């Protein structure tokens, strides 16, 4: 059980720091609000059916979530790297896997917080209807977000010591998440338009499979990734 306690303590510290400064939350929230507003304004100027709008809205939602993960990624190790004190984490008597899982937990928590707000904004401004199976929509959003966060944390780990993170992060992140984003978008569109539970469940399983593969890989090589 000690690894779970370690993960919880590390994540709690990061969440506390984030809610105290609110830098990442603010930038993610602002980006989400601005994006929803821009897409909603665009919909007022084009002649498109309600179904078409809903299909585009589902894509917009995943576009916003993807870039919110990108914004969140910058904060994953920022506190440790700010003063070159990645050693503060490395000096702790904990398994390196605990560090990875704690950072993942932190990213999922702050992203979920903003995602709830984004979903409300999307319902209001982008007219994503919730008469569809709401539980399935939540499932797709949760698994899709988790998948993106796993990929994001791996990229953060790979680029801990990279000198040009702004270049390295997108180069590694986008190819890794492209299959997930495409599947998640297709699934959400399918759910909003056709309410077809079987396709949604099959696609969700694909997302889980994708997350499980990369998570297993990264947990096997965490020692090497976090070591200098």
């Amino acid at each position: 059980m000690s690894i779970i306690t370690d993960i919880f303590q590390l994540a709690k510290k990061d969440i506390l720091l984030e809610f105290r400064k609110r830098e990442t939350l603010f930038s993610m929230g602002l980006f989400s609000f601005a994006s929803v507003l821009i897409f909603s304004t665009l919909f007022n100027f084009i002649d498109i059916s309600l179904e078409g709008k809903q299909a585009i809205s589902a894509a917009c939602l995943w576009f916003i979530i993807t870039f919110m993960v990108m914004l969140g990624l910058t904060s994953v190790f920022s506190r440790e790297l700010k003063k070159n004190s990645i050693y503060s984490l490395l000096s702790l008597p904990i398994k390196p896997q605990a560090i990875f899982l704690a950072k993942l937990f932190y990213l999922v928590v702050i992203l979920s917080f903003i995602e709830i707000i984004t979903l409300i904004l999307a319902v209001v401004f982008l007219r994503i209807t919730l008469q569809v199976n709401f539980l399935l929509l939540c499932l797709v959003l949760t698994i899709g977000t988790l998948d993106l966060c796993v990929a994001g944390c791996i990229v953060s780990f790979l680029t801990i010591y990279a000198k040009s993170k702004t270049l390295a992060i997108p180069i590694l992140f986008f190819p890794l998440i492209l299959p997930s984003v495409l599947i998640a978008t297709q699934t959400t569109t399918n759910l909003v338009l056709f309410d077809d539970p079987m396709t949604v469940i099959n696609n969700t399983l694909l997302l889980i499979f994708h997350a499980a593969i990369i998570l297993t890989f990264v947990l096997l090589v965490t020692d090497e990734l976090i070591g200098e």
Partner: protein
Amino acid sequence: MSVINRENPPIVKLTNVSKVYGFINAVKDIDLTIEEGETVGLLGNNGAGKSTLLKIISLLITPTTGKIELFGKEVKEDQYLFKREIGTLLSHSFFYEDLTGRENLEFYLKMNRRTDDHVKVINNMVKQYGLKFFIDRPTHELSTGMAKKLELLRVTLPYLPKLLLLDEPFSGLDVENKQFIKNIITERKSNTTVIICSHDFNSISHICTKVYYLEKGRINIILEPSEFDYFLNKQN
């Protein structure tokens, strides 16, 4: 699971340890044995390899070549088990600057699992060292001396670890704070092995039982206490 071998082996044994950064040999072919209870100084100018050697011993970086044995066991896998017995104080702070001193200390105490009663340990420490006015302030508001005091308490609470590694612990401190740190090291050093990095021989000569002088990544001179005065005079 404990990593301490009970047959009284050397606390630190490095065999042929080297560390290369790109084309730079930060540390070259170091052989070093440190026994339990010793207070050892690593002396040298900037860039001599002292801090790199300290980070290798504290398992923060992996040597390019060579073998590390700590507490009588070779360090290979499960390094986190060895880290339970090591307290490391580097020249830059480990504290999260937006957390208060109390929150930082609580975090490290919980992570190091040295005590279950974090509140009591911290409150006792606050009383003992008169830190009441500083402990609940964010650490970025603290002076260098106060921050260093708290950092030292981070690695020494509630008791000293088996191996205490200090990188330039006296730099930037006034006489009072220097004395505070010296007291903590000397008062309780009997069961703890201490390694101190410094470029200033004066500041460590009074507390060290042996000093290794490093130059260009190699140990050039090993000084015993009887040779300290001679070396000090030569330096001056």
